[in-house]
């Protein structure tokens, strides 16, 4: 299958760029980010706050089996409907994760659109930390799986 999502990590920089084309009208793609109900659905998170406006902000929290496993927040700097969102993003308990995000929404046809997210980190090292995250998360999952197997053996 063709890889729809592309990640560009420019050598020696402190930014990374994620691009993806969607079979969705640009208005709907934008709504996925602008309306709390939609954010909650596709991110599988609880939206504690989403002030989607210039100088707004947001707070997400995800729980698993009663425990909070993910908490993120940020400041929304600027919104241009169906075109752009500029915001910060921070994962709580992970100060290295604070970065600036430029989300550009682009209409391709009436039914397709493109999203480009440019993420700018404090330094190249901070960017590297972020790239490692899903890797660490994968390890974590493997570890949990192992624990489960061990538990069942008892």
């Amino acid at each position, binding site marked *: 299958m063709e890889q729809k999502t592309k990640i560009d990590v420019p050598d020696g920089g402190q930014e990374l760029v994620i691009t993806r084309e*969607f079979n969705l009208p640009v208005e709907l793609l934008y709504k996925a980010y602008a309306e709390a109900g939609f954010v909650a659905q596709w991110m599988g998170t609880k939206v504690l706050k989403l002030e989607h406006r210039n100088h707004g902000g947001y707070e997400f929290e995800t729980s698993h089996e009663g425990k909070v496993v993910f908490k993120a927040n940020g400041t929304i700097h600027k919104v241009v409907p169906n075109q752009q969102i500029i915001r910060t993003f921070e994962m709580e308990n992970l100060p290295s994760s604070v970065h600036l995000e430029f989300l550009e929404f682009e209409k391709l046809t009436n039914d397709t659109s493109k999203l480009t997210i440019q993420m700018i980190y404090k330094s190249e090292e901070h960017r590297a930390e972020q*790239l490692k995250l899903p890797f660490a998360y994968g390890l974590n999952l493997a570890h949990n799986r192992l624990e489960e197997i061990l538990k069942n053996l008892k």
Partner: protein
Amino acid sequence: MKLRRDVFQAISDPTRRTIITLVAASAMTPSAIAENFDYSRQTISKHIQILTECDLLKQEQKGREIYYQLNPKGMKQIADFIEPFRKMWEDRFNTLEAVMKSNMHEHKK
């Protein structure tokens, strides 16, 4: 697993990245590599050593000289490193598309 982390640390240093670019073109001796920098031979040797330990460079003995060249195995690990990150976003966006599509249909009803 430790190896992977080291690979990433190895390429986070600009001097080491330049060394990778240099030997990517052709195999080089340590002194030929060092000529490209203002640093001491010793400093460059240290960088070469780290890159070799991380499997990014490999040595080849030609007569009396040791040549360094890129190790494809290590370079592949860097590509693999980005992959889980890409996969995470791919999954996320697939969900976004599915969720919004179902909402679009609800909307039209």
